[in-house]
């Protein structure tokens, strides 16, 4: 119920934050929205000596269109992503996904960057950024670099962030008139996390043939993943129900689904197939 004692720093710039992380190394934890970190602190599952709060750095919370991308500051709250006109117009998938996260209090407080960097295997945003083929900007002691969403998630709560690096921005290619997307989620009843969540984003041609596709799956394995096998079945095909069903069958292919008190591996794999099918159908029904 009570965190163990720590020193608290609220840097004013990303550079300062990076310097603090460098200084304290493993002993430091980054605080973004706190909706995942606070429970860990309170249960003393995390006992950092130093907490570095990104909340006082101006200009880490923004949403703007930049050419053919939407740029979202890492400290942008879920609720802001959900309500943003820019996101709704140009990257509907992210808004739709944001709307399913936790509950309104969590959405009011939690941030997209925090959610991604925490890399909870049942988090919602990881699936969405995979399907949106986002790229992530990280800033560290060696300067900044970009990581493709697909390369970002490494394992359970482990990302490609190096020591001292901070995720600062998420960039998502804008929707075209031919983009269709959907996020389909089965909630774990107690926690609100995804027992399974599938995000799909399709590019269709005039004949509703699939010109581009990305499918992100969360909740099933140790990390969110791109369902490449599904994508292969869809790419280049006219998306009939038969194709959709056949593609969805491959949603858990090559993945070792998690097994715990909440669900068996078999059920998780099954849900991956069901959610993929449903997400595809919903995306196609979009218009």
């Amino acid at each position, binding site marked *: *119920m*009570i965190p*163990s*004692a720590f020193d608290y720093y609220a840097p004013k710039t990303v550079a300062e934050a990076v310097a603090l992380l460098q200084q304290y190394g493993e002993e430091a934890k980054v605080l973004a929205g706190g909706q995942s970190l606070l429970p860990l602190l309170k*249960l*003393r599952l995390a006992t950092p000596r130093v907490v570095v709060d990104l909340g006082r750095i101006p200009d880490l919370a923004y949403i703007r269109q930049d050419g053919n991308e939407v740029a979202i500051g890492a400290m942008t709250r879920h609720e802001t992503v959900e309500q943003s006109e820019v996101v709704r117009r140009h990257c509907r998938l992210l808004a739709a996904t944001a709307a399913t996260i936790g509950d309104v209090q969590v959405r009011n407080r939690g941030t997209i960057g925090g959610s991604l960097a925490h890399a909870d295997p049942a988090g919602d945003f990881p699936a969405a950024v995979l399907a949106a083929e986002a790229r992530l900007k990280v800033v560290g002691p060696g300067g900044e670099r970009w990581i493709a969403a697909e390369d970002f998630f490494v394992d359970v709560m482990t990302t490609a962030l190096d020591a001292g690096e901070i995720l600062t921005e998420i960039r998502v290619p804008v929707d075209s008139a031919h983009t269709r997307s959907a996020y389909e989620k*089965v909630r*774990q*009843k*107690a*926690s609100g996390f995804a027992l399974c969540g599938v995000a799909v984003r399709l590019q269709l041609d005039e004949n509703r043939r699939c010109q581009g596709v990305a499918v992100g799956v969360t909740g099933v394995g140790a990390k969110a993943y791109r369902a490449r096998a599904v994508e292969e079945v869809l790419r280049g095909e006219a998306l009939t129900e038969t194709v959709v069903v056949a593609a969805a069958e491959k949603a858990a292919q090559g993945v070792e689904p998690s097994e715990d*008190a*909440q*669900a*068996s591996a078999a*059920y998780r794999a*099954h*849900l991956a197939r*069901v959610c993929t099918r449903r997400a595809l159908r919903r995306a196609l029904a979009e218009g």
Partner: protein
Amino acid sequence: MDKRKYVGEAIPRVEDRRLVTGTSHYVDDIRLPEMLHMVLVRSPYGHARINRIETAAAEAMPGVVAVLTGEAIRGRIKSIPCASEMEGLKVPEHPVLAVERVRYVGEPVAAVVAKDRYTAQDAADRLEVEYEPLEVVVDVERAVAPGAPVIHEELGDNVAFVLRFEGGEALKAAFERADVVIEQRLVNQRLHPVAMEPRGVVAEYWPGEDRLTVWSSTQIPHLLRTQLAMMVGMAEHRVRVIAPEVGGGFGSKLNVYGEEALVAYLARELKKPVKWVETRRENMMSTIHGRGQINDVRVAVTRDGRVLGLEVRILSDLGAYHQLLTPGIPPLTGLMLSGPYKIPAIGYEIVGVFTNAMSTDAYRGAGRPEATYVLERVMDLIARQLEMDPVEVRVKNFPQPEEFPYETATGLAYDSGDYEAALRKALEVVEYEKLRQEQAERRQRGELMGIGISSYVEICALGPSAALPAGGWESATVRVEPTGKVTVLTGASPHGQGQETSFAQLVADELGVPLEDVYVVHGDTAVVPYGIGTFGSRATAVGGTAVYEAVQMVKEKVRSFAAHLLGVDWEEVEEGVGEYRSRRDPERVVSFQEVAQAAYLAKSLPPGVTPGLEATYFFEPSNFTFPFGTHVAVVDIDPETGEVKIRRYVAVDDCGRVINPLLVEGQIHGGIVQALGQALMEEVVYDEWGQLLSGDLSSYAVPRAGDVPWMETARTETPTTVNPMGIKGVGEAGTIGATPAIVNAVVDALAPRGVRHVDMPLTPEKIWRLLQGDAKA
């Protein structure tokens, strides 16, 4: 002319202003000067020997005042009490802090007291306890099997008691006569009660006065006081227990816990106030659990669906120790095995079993939901086997209204009832015939739609003292103050049920005063005469009756004073609303206030009448009451995910006379939703090592707003003959009636796929597996 203005009306509660403005006081809101905080160190093992506890590092921390271990306080605090009595019952020693051995995850091992909660928690983390893990047994069947680890070695084995009963006609003959015998194992899983306010205790001791005051989040302040006094070795009249605002109990606070005694002991030892407030994880580890029964059922039936006999073997998972009523809960299941039906022969055997788990005890319904679940699943199994409509089977076995009081084979006398009327009303509201048609059509299309019925009778208004471990009566004092304001003291100690309103409604009507002139006080043993508490749907039926009787006594005295002031005979006083007139001379009037004042000024007393205007009544009920009803659930199942959606929910309940229909509806709603939790999502899970896998709200799902259907409620009203107001009680109807309705609906939906039964909770995965055909139930 009916002068009643309040009784029967849906009046918003008088207690709510403080609750909607955040100005009420729960235990954790109490702050006393120099107050210290206690944090407990609990066992991480399901079963282990304690080899060593190293306290020095914790004790050395600044701000730490005391560190206590079980060894250090051995003999200073008596065993945590068990009030249930039964022939041959094994009662293990139950220390407030474990000595030598721990027997469940969460058992308190040491207490740390410090100047604030943060420091106490830090110190608790510094405590080093060396455990030697022992073999764990959490499964009841394994616990009674040969070779199982024995949880209390001094007791020989893990069987705490065996209770056998056979009543009515000969059971063996009934089964010989039967055309059909149906057997089924029915499991009532363990549940966490999850009252929203965790438990908490504050104690303060004044050495000069030798006075101990304990604030506890309890349903039973008086019983707690008696037990606490004995546990810490104080004279009972030196101990005052206050149950301030209590944030829900559902039976989990109908208990005496080690922490209550520990905090009291520490306050006395340290001569400073001490507070302890449970975290949610502690709440789930070490506040009592509910249910936990495996019932092997055999039923003997005639070809046309008449039940001839019922035999049940109950394996009851008691947990590692007895809490206050632990062994007393499963016998309630046995007692209620006739349900709302005429079952001529009933036999049962209850085996109470120790396991390496938290104690089970009373959780809303307490033994009766288990019985109802047995009967209502059985009725559906009969209907299925004999290809009858579930309605028909039920109606065929109901006793008729003229058969009341109806005597069951288990030895109860049901007070009053018209079970078929409630069932018919529920069917009418839900439009049963139409639904069955719709279901037939949907089944044609392969859709999974189910309709579930549950008819129940519950045993409430607990109860005659002879049948309860610690008194079944309730007390009330009605006091008219000199200004005419009325104070009501009730021993019933409500905690969310709203008796501050319903009792005020009752008294205001009886005395003809405005509702706001009646103030209901409860939960303070220094102010309120000894009482029993709120549980077992008893507060209104038993506590309310005590109020009713007390107010009759006050009215008699009011009349005497009114007659005296009017200068007329007693019979010549005409009662108005808040005033009294001479029948002979209607111009002569005295007000209620004038009467009240006269009673206290006592310048002139009516002959043989004493000053003052108050009365106390201890009501002893002659029997239980037996509310009843029928619930109907309509569900749709997603064949792909196994998710259950409750489309309609209709509840027709008969709780006798009603004081405030708004509160009755609230009780019904809440109970149904807790039942829904048991049916669909809740389950305490210990793994084979005794680790609690459902130990917080991220792993134990309780119903949220989005899980709940819109509930359609209706009532029939059959007054009880047990008390003068005809009130039966309603607090547990929902959890008793609703669970099988939902399960029956789900099984009905799955019937075309060959499913005959599914164990609770009916999680999507379980249903999906059944639909895959990989697990036949």
